[in-house]
């Protein structure tokens, strides 16, 4: 072993207990957070309910920010809903659906909340995005699995055709290849082509430029809970550019928008 490798190895060994401790702290936060959430659900006094939900939020929010769990965002959405912080609840449900569009509870809750808040969800994606239907109904995890395993099928038929030279195998191979390319294009669109979305958290005005001295584009403030498209590449300091079908593009303070 080279001399420089020894300290690196020792450093890694020293890190191990810390990694374990990190896991334990997350596990504790989860346990206590869900216990508080359950307590909030069962509370008979409103004040007690509020305190429990606040505690659950404090414990679960940092965990949710560091993992990929649709279920956890659903829980956060429910907590925000109970605390009547509706824009945050909407954002959490959207995040849950972004991770897993198949999360029925999140979809149902979001629909109910949008109806309650009289927010009409507007579909303002480019028309060609409707071609990539699959990415709207499947999670990235499912897409990766299906694409990988369906490639095995394509691979199998390619091999069969190569060795046995049967006409039907060739047709099967081409049909499967086309389907596979469509599936793969869905994943590529989801990762690189789909617009970045956000939710308005605080009432805000869209402005012509990045500053309060620029003219307002909208007469009335954007209502919290509305979904917008974020043009990330046009950020200027604390100001980001968002797009709405009715108003076009405009600058808003980034704190007023929550990233989905």
């Amino acid at each position, binding site marked *: 072993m080279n001399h420089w490798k020894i300290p690196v190895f020792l450093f890694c060994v020293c890190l191990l207990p810390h990694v374990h401790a990190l896991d334990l702290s*997350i596990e504790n936060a*989860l346990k206590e957070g869900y216990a508080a*959430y359950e307590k909030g659900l069962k509370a008979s006094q*409103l004040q007690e309910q509020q305190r429990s939900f606040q505690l659950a939020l404090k414990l679960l929010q940092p965990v949710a920010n560091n993992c990929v*769990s649709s279920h956890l965002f659903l829980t956060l959405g429910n907590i925000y809903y109970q605390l009547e912080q509706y824009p945050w609840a909407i954002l959490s449900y959207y995040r849950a659906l972004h991770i897993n569009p198949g999360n029925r509870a999140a979809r149902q809750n979001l629909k109910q909340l949008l109806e309650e808040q009289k927010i009409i969800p507007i579909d303002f994606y480019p028309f060609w995005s409707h071609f990539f239907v699959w990415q709207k109904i499947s999670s990235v995890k499912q897409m990766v699995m299906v694409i*990988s395993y369906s490639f095995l099928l394509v691979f199998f038929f390619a091999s069969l055709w*190569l060795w046995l030279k049967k006409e039907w195998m060739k047709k099967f191979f081409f049909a499967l290849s086309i389907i596979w390319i469509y599936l793969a294009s869905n994943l590529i669109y989801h990762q690189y082509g789909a617009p970045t979305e956000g939710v308005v958290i605080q009432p805000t005005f869209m402005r012509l430029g990045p500053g309060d001295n620029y003219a307002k584009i909208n007469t009335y403030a954007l209502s919290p809970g509305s979904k917008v498209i974020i043009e990330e590449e046009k950020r200027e300091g604390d100001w980001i550019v968002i797009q709405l079908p009715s108003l076009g593009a405009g600058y808003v303070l980034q704190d007023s928008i929550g990233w989905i």
Partner: protein
Amino acid sequence: MVKVCHVWIGLLFFWHLGFAVHVQMEVEGTPMAGQPIQVLVTLERSPEVEAKHFEIDDHPVQLELLYNTRQSSLSIINGVRKEKNSLISTYRFSIPGKIKGIHTLSPISVEVDGKRYYSNALTYEVETPVFSKDFFIETYVKTHGVIYPGSKVDCIVRIFTKFPCQFLRMDFPLLDPATGFKKVGQERQRTYTREGYTVMEKAQPVRALEPGVYSMGASHIEVIRYRMGSFGEQIQQPPTLLAEAPSFEVTIRPFPEMGKPDFFGGALGDFTIRTELASPTDTFFVGDKIEMKVVIDGSGDFDTVNLALEKLYSGLARHFRFSDIPPSGDMIDRKKVFYIDLRPLSAEVKEIPELAFASFDPEQEKYVISRSDPIPIHVLLENTLEPSLEKGAAELTHPKQEEKTNHKEEIEQMQKAAFQIKVAPASPIALQALNNDRPRWNLLWIIPIGLGVVAFQLALYQAIKKKHAKGKPPSYVYMKRAKRAQSREAFFGFIEKSLVKLAQEKLHDASIISFHQLPPVGSYRELRIFLQELEKNRYQNQKSLSTKKIWQEAKSLYQKIKREK
């Protein structure tokens, strides 16, 4: 090589045209001696790139963006479609006043996409202002007495002229006050005549914001007279005429501190408050939503009426929970009506106490306080209802509750509704399941590995095929190919080639390249007839001809000739 260079030069030319940046400067109106000169800058660029750092003579200039315009043009030349999008931004800045004469402003430069672009220098003429008694303006703020925060006033500009004229430049700062006031509603405009003058009146309604003394800037207007030509055209008659109105101050007085109630929310007028329960029942469980209707009636500016709940309900915060966002009221029958949701926090709440509403009457210059009547309600604790359900109505003291116990199912439903989560609940999640939704990107390694394996199989297949073909006579190779042929056409071709090659090999005669050259004796005669028939059927495109049968015949002929010595 020269041709290639020309193509590149052409491409660069068109690329340059497609993404050209243009900067232009012009003076707004006619500059007058001693007055600030407004300069407009127009910048045309591609919408994708940002413009920054405006400079004149290497000194930064602060510009005010007035508006952006987008332009699209589509051209189809020789069937090639070209679409060009550009963003035209108009900015404004001012330079100090100059003396009468011709002046030059150095070019302005701007950085776009990392490159600096320059406008041309601007030459302009400053004139001496000419005033006329037939043309003047008047500015003032129309109020109904003292202005307090929230008061609605009109900022008015009147332009008096005795001749037809074209407006060259108008600068009315009071129509767009920067501080102290907020514009409410659209600017109104009307024209009428008075004492021989044609009067154009512009009125902008504004609302006073904070107490203080605010300066309404000086107003300027430049016009040029014109007369109508023979063909109805306007013929201008210099010189340019200028009219000015001096700046003036407007005072917004603070509300008097004497007698000012804590819960005063800025309402201007004389109002009374009335509350009533909007919910269908007056019995609730702890945490239930109670809808209360608040009606504000009276005279004054209803736009200033709002319910600052944290002030109104300061004494109630420990008994009720309510949204901290002020409710928005609606005007119904000249009254402002609010609906407020309250949630009782304990069963000790017996009533929604009175609400006090304060307004300031600017005419009387005093505060008016109105109080609503308390609304009695019955709040039940969820747990206390359980035993009462089992025992019947006896333990419930309130008559309303006694009535309710007769409807056991109804009460049970109410119990379930209280504190029940309205959205689909979520069950706890384990640490191991935290990253269940994280995609397994490693799985995608299957794709390059699989492609590699396919390439390997292809190479292997080619190698095996080559190895098999090695040392075998061509007739045999063609026979094998005929067996694997994908189409009828290829099948017939390979059969013919194989049998002709076989005759070549057996007769040791390389000159035989067609079955017509086969000797008409023995097996070769048979072969010749077979191939003749085959060709005939092949070119007559007889689909009914069975390839299986032909294969059998060809195979037996092949083996027969092969065995001959």
